[in-house]
């Protein structure tokens, strides 16, 4: 305690150490925390209730997927890909298979591509539903969780019928599909689309005009388009900040080009806009599924790909629009049966970097909301 006489009476902003106004508190929101969507540890520097800055400590779920890839053949590595973003496993598989097909300069037959699009869009809706349920739960609304999980169950049933697994589906193979669409697949998907359309309106009824929801999300975790691009943030977070960019439109893959759908964008890049963008995205995915189910062509479901594939020497970078953002695969092949290097560009890992910027000068309660709105999955962040 400095000598009292030295403090001039007007010098009131000397740092005080009492509990009353400890001016900088470092709090550890540990790996085990109900609202960090997995084993993420955030070290918060607080001034009372305001967040001065935060630092993410990750790596608790690091399984060394890229190292394993170098010791597995291309087909054997396929199931590992589902374990990264376990919420949107199907789109992981799509990204990997298309990257290797590009390496083999092989093209999946149209029927396979249509079914792939249907399953990926179904998976996008399931991922957004899980996001909405847990995000609303973090902010305190208990009911949406049960609504979204009930509807998500329908999608998982379709996955289970198609490929036997609900979550880590391993539905795709390099060069096309393993399983033919079971009979009644189109009927199930059509029923699902008509079943879920009014349900999304139900979610909107619960939250969109809910005064307290507006107060908890408007103006929280704001990030501008420019910052998003600088930080490499992609997906709904980027679109909510006003940048109209979606890989399905910018660089179409798996013949997305012959489906028409809009890309929703928000104006001021806060949590509410991201909520609205994701809700519209769910509806757009339904539109894509409808068009895809109508136009499924007949024909083979598997391109001519050798059993033990040895892609020619070379490297390729291929990325798709996963529910969380741009999911990219950089595969280097040295001509042998095993990839020489597989680099995965995970959207959650890069989006998480923006957490510090978005939480600056927000309150502690908002950090939870921002983590929710970033929609990160730790399996993908830590790989």
């Amino acid at each position, binding site marked *: 305690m400095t000598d009292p006489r030295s403090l001039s009476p007007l010098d009131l902003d000397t740092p005080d150490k009492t509990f009353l106004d400890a001016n900088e508190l470092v709090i550890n929101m540990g790996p085990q925390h109900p609202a960090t969507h997995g084993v993420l540890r955030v070290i918060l520097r607080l001034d009372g209730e305001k967040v001065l800055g935060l630092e993410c400590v990750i790596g608790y779920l690091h399984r060394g997927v890229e190292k394993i890839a170098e010791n597995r053949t291309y087909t054997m590595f396929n199931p590992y890909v589902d374990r990264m973003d376990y919420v949107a496993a199907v789109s992981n598989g799509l990204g990997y298979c298309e990257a290797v097909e590009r390496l083999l300069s092989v093209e999946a037959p149209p029927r396979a591509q249509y079914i792939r699009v249907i399953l990926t869009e179904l998976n996008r809706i399931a991922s957004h539903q899980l996001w909405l349920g847990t995000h609303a739960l973090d902010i305190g609304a*208990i009911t949406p969780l049960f609504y979204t999980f009930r509807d998500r169950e329908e999608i998982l049933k379709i996955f289970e019928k198609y490929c036997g697994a609900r979550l880590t589906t391993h539905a795709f193979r390099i060069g096309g599909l393993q399983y033919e669409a079971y009979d009644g697949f189109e009927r199930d998907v059509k029923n699902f689309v008509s079943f879920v359309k009014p349900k999304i309106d139900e979610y909107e009824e619960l939250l969109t005009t809910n005064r307290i929801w507006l107060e908890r999300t408007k103006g929280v975790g704001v990030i501008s388009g420019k910052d998003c691009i600088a930080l490499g943030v992609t997906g709904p977070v980027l679109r909510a900040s006003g940048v109209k960019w979606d890989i399905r439109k910018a660089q179409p893959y798996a013949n997305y080009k012959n489906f028409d759908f809009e890309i929703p964008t928000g104006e001021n890049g806060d949590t509410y806009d991201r909520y609205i963008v994701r809700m519209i995205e769910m509806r757009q995915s339904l539109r894509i599924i409808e068009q895809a189910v109508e136009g499924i062509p007949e024909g083979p479901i598997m391109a001519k790909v050798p059993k033990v594939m040895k892609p020619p020497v070379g490297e390729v970078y291929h990325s798709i629009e996963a529910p969380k953002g741009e999911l990219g695969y950089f595969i280097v092949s040295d001509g042998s049966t095993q990839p020489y290097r597989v680099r995965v560009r995970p959207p959650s890992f890069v989006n998480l970097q923006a957490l510090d910027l978005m939480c600056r000068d927000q309150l502690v309660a908002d950090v939870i909301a921002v983590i929710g709105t970033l929609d990160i999955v730790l399996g993908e962040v830590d790989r």
Partner: protein
Amino acid sequence: MHALVQYIESYLSSDKTPGTAGNWFWATVYVLLVFVGLSIAVIAMNWLERKILAHMQVRLGPMRVGPHGLLQPIADALKLLLKEDIIPDGADKVVFWIAPFIVVLAAFTVFVVVPFGPTHAITDMNIGILFMLGVSSLSVLGIVTAGWASNSHYPLIGALRSSAQMVSYEVAMGLAVVSAILMTSLNESSTGTLSMIGIVEAQKAQGEWFLFKFFPLGIIAFAIFAIAMVAETNRAPFDLPEAESELTAGFHTEYSGFRWSLFFLAEYSAMIAVSSIAVTLWLGGWLRPFPNLLHGTTWDLAFSFIPGIAFLLLGAMCFYNTARMPKHPLFKIQTIGLAGFGAVLALIGLVMFLPPVRERVGDIFWFSAKVAGFMYLYIWYRGTFPRYRFDQLMKVGWKVLLPTGLALLICTALWAMRSEVWTQVVVPVGMGFADFVRRLL
């Protein structure tokens, strides 16, 4: 035996509550009756909350323990009794032990003045509503000491937060209550009264519930009180301290077993207490709907049947569910249990049709029905609203409820005294001003 019946008869016909009549025996009987009724209400509330919340969330809620989970509250109570009672080391033993009792004391003594009927209240204190508000403000002390005694950083912050919330909403609640009491002084007989029974009598005399009196003002006062009472009991949108997805845990995290159940009991009885204040002040306590509009013996007779019909309906619901119960032998006990429960309810319904019971039970039934309506409101809030952030919560408390409360009080006063205000203030001032202008010209 006859003397006893005659003694009960003499009491039932008396026009004063046992407390005021200074009758020790009846007062203790009433205290027991109220607290038994309260614990049954808390148990029922526990079951109702889980079931209604579940059905709001597309799920079934407790179904396993007893038919449709009816025995679940008892199972909970047993579990809490048997659970180990941990006292954190370094905790302040004495204060740790006292805190839940302060909270329960505050939550239970409020029912001393709650009027279930013109003579059915434990006592009719001259300062009824003042006593209720005072005692309910004591629970803040219990919460603060509980947070302090748990000797750990987060319950302390949780306790400070929830007590700050309760203190600030008490102010808003007080203002709403004052404006309601102001309305009691408008009928010719009484000069305005704080006593709860007096307030309901005033509503009866003035022929309308205070909710509808002075059209917008009554409803605004009721709205302020409704919001403040939800915040006062740390429920639904204001349940920041308990449901902690942020850092600070609630003040009763260090408690376990029986002590935690005391907090749980106190929370529910505080909810019932605060809703009974709202019912007494704005919804005409034990008065049946439209007491003056549809008065007259035929209407009284019709309304007096409603309690019986209500219980019969409940019984019918139970029988309907027994019919729908699956036929599997495993469910045999549950069907019998449910059928028995339905039979009991139906029996109570029938008893309520007997003439002597019919006249007297009406008051209590209407009061409880209104309080039950509030309970449903609480559960509904919990199902739909996300949680307020702490600063928003305080902002609503201080910047929204308090100013409207003050403005409301002033408007009610002015409107109530509109004749006097007109004759003694507006007219002389107007005349003076006119005179001043005339002298100028």
